[in-house]
């Protein structure tokens, strides 16, 4: 048992860290705190990576990737995480849409769409959730109808992250309302500038507006942009979500180290907070979670290193880290007492951001409850919930959209 790289892994790590050292400094400074400015920096960074072959590591070389092994991907991200880099924006494209396009698109489409996804020129979004279908994704109602070789799409998507700055989107629709729920779905990719698409930002509880409502009014999609067979969109969606699972990581934001450092300076009841037993007890619990996740990841990396594929076990990461972040933020604000509600100190603001960001994390990409189902069913082999909608024609299933 050790934490040492194999000689090949060590070489690769050195190559990565040397490259990062030279290139991170080429990223332009942020002009301001606006979304456009972070987007510009993210694009610039992706471009720099791409030029030297460090973008989309796991993709084939021909589409702009590196043909890297899973282990090399892990090493790259470990090294990259030592810097604060303008990442984000590309998870959906490179992490989900890209792999799905590779499986289902034509050769011509791959040549056209994958390279600009890899070099950061084009951004993609995921048009899955709807007002009536989130956890129960197969309950979507956005309607697609084929006439000749063109589809017409009508309906509404919601919570679409980044729709407003995306160039393309992956989309699931219902093409057959009389088939059972999982059988009548058809999957597409489309240009977000298509006529008939209307995007309205939704303000989030943390004040940001990264997700949107997306309306489809007679939006035309050529049949050539269908991924998978008609009526078999659910399988394509599952492949997409499997890739989402590979992408989910720790909740970024306040974690053990930040709160621990804070308790060393923050006064509480006449001494620094870290000297208080109730505080120490909390810190110990969070450290155990922090450390447990860290070494769970190491165990997973070891399995990857031996060539095993990662399974649904990784579901615990998001549940534990998002809840931990929420508790740390809440407890930290408690320590600051009544001035915690004022955003005037740097750590106080980070705590507020954590407290308002954690609820989003606990919902996005599979809620805590859905992830517990996944652990029980897919890891532990327990039976599925009772499903009164199974095998029933979709238009006979009751649905309650509470708005």
């Amino acid at each position, binding site marked *: 048992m050790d*934490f040492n790289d194999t000689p090949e892994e060590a070489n690769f790590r050195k190559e990565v860290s040397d490259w990062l050292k030279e290139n991170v400094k080429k990223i332009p400074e942020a002009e301001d705190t606006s979304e456009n400015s972070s987007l510009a920096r993210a694009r610039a960074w992706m471009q720099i990576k791409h030029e030297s072959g460090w973008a989309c590591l796991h993709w084939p070389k021909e589409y702009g990737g590196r043909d890297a092994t899973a282990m090399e991907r892990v090493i790259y991200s470990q090294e990259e995480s030592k810097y604060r880099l303008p990442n984000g924006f590309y998870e959906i494209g490179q992490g989900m849409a890209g792999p799905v396009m590779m499986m289902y698109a034509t050769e011509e489409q791959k040549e056209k769409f994958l390279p600009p996804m890899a070099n950061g020129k084009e951004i993609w979004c995921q048009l899955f959730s709807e007002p009536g279908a989130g956890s129960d994704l197969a309950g979507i109602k956005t309607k697609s109808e084929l006439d000749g070789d063109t589809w017409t799409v009508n309906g509404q998507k919601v919570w679409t992250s980044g729709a407003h700055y995306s160039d393309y989107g992956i989309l699931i629709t219902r093409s057959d309302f009389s088939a059972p729920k999982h059988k009548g779905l058809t999957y597409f990719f489309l240009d977000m500038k298509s006529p008939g698409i209307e995007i309205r930002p939704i303000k989030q509880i943390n004040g940001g507006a990264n997700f949107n409502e997306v309306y489809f009014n007679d939006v035309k999609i050529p049949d050539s942009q269908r991924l998978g067979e008609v009526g078999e969109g659910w399988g394509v969606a599952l492949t997409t979500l499997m890739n989402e699972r590979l992408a989910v990581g720790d909740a970024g934001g306040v974690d053990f180290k930040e709160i621990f450092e804070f308790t060393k300076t923050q006064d509480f009841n006449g001494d620094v907070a870290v000297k208080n037993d109730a505080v120490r007890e909390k810190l*110990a619990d969070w450290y155990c979670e922090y450390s447990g996740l860290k*070494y*769970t990841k190491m*165990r997973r990396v070891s399995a990857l290193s031996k060539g095993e594929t990662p399974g649904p076990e990784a579901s615990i990461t998001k549940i*534990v880290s998002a809840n931990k972040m929420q508790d740390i933020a809440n407890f930290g604000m408690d320590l600051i007492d009544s001035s915690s509600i004022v955003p005037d100190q740097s750590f106080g603001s980070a705590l507020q951001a954590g407290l308002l960001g954690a609820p989003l994390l606990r919902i996005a990409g599979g809620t805590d409850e859905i992830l517990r189902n996944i652990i029980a069913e897919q890891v532990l082999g327990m039976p599925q*919930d009772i499903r009164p909608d199974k095998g029933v024609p979709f238009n006979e299933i009751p649905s309650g959209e509470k708005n």
Partner: protein
Amino acid sequence: MNFEFSDEQLIMKEEVRKLLDKENSVKRNRNILEGEESFDKDLWDSLVSMGLTAITIPEEFGGIGMGYLELCVVAEELGRAIAPVPFSSSVYLATTLILDHANKDLKESYLPRLASGEIIGTLAHTEKSTHPTPDSIETTYDGGSITGNKAVVPDGDIADFTIVSAKHDSGIGLYLVDLNSSGVSKETLETFDPSRSHSNISFDKAPAIEITKDGWGAIEKLMDQSAVLFAFEQIGGAEAAMTMAKDYAQGRFAFGRSIAQFQAIKHKIADMYIALQLAKSNCYFGAWALSNDAAELPTAAATARVSSTKAFYECSKENIQTHGGMGATWEFDCHLFYRRSRLLAANIGSQGIWKDKLITSLEKSNLPA
């Protein structure tokens, strides 16, 4: 990176598991719990003949000279099988102290017999109903003998000898006392988990051999080392309890369906799994730190200890809940795991003590990246 036990270690684990299954260790736990015997001699002999008491002892002292990683995988299986044997006292505690601190003569005299299972050792440290501190030790060593009272000594009426913490002129030392010698009297206790025996032991000028004068440093180190091993027992027990709950739920029907289809049950078991995985991963780091005698051992040990104690408590109590009325019966095995989880949580210091140790060690160290 290879943050996993080796294939040989995993094979050894499997062998121990098979043996404990074949010997019906959980049934034997119940027999000890209900009967008059203080431990299961047959099971002990089987473990000894597999060489498990000799794992960490070098060949020159009659052992097999493997390391702590092997002992960790064995501990996990003993915990899973809630084995009613004095293994932790003799191997994690007494053997480790002699290995690390005794002189060559003592090693030559004791280690071969510990390895062969001919003798059993333990540690007599606690005195009152609080966690011992250097100031709370009242037992004294003077002129070659020990006088004082030690409380809830694990396997005290089974062991042939014990190592005793006692005051000398300038601090706390550790001394070896033959439990059959004059001046030793034992009182067997009724405890929360009678599958493991405990005694109060009084020493009245009992002859003693000095092991080390820096007994407190030795005890602190031993607590860290053994915390990792106990933590492996705890995750073994936790996993057994989780598996029992899952298996029972799948076979039990209510309201026309398997109770395993109720989310209140599924999510309970998913939570057990989460607690167990976090603890297990921390145990792995503890195993690494223990086997490399790494500077991180105090942090790693406390982290493994705190999260494994939590996981075993959670899994064993919710296992009872999942069983409904059956879980409340003496006849079902759920309570054996529940009792063992409390015993293991109590034996080398409470959660409060270990959480405090954890934060203290983090205050002293630079946080690992």
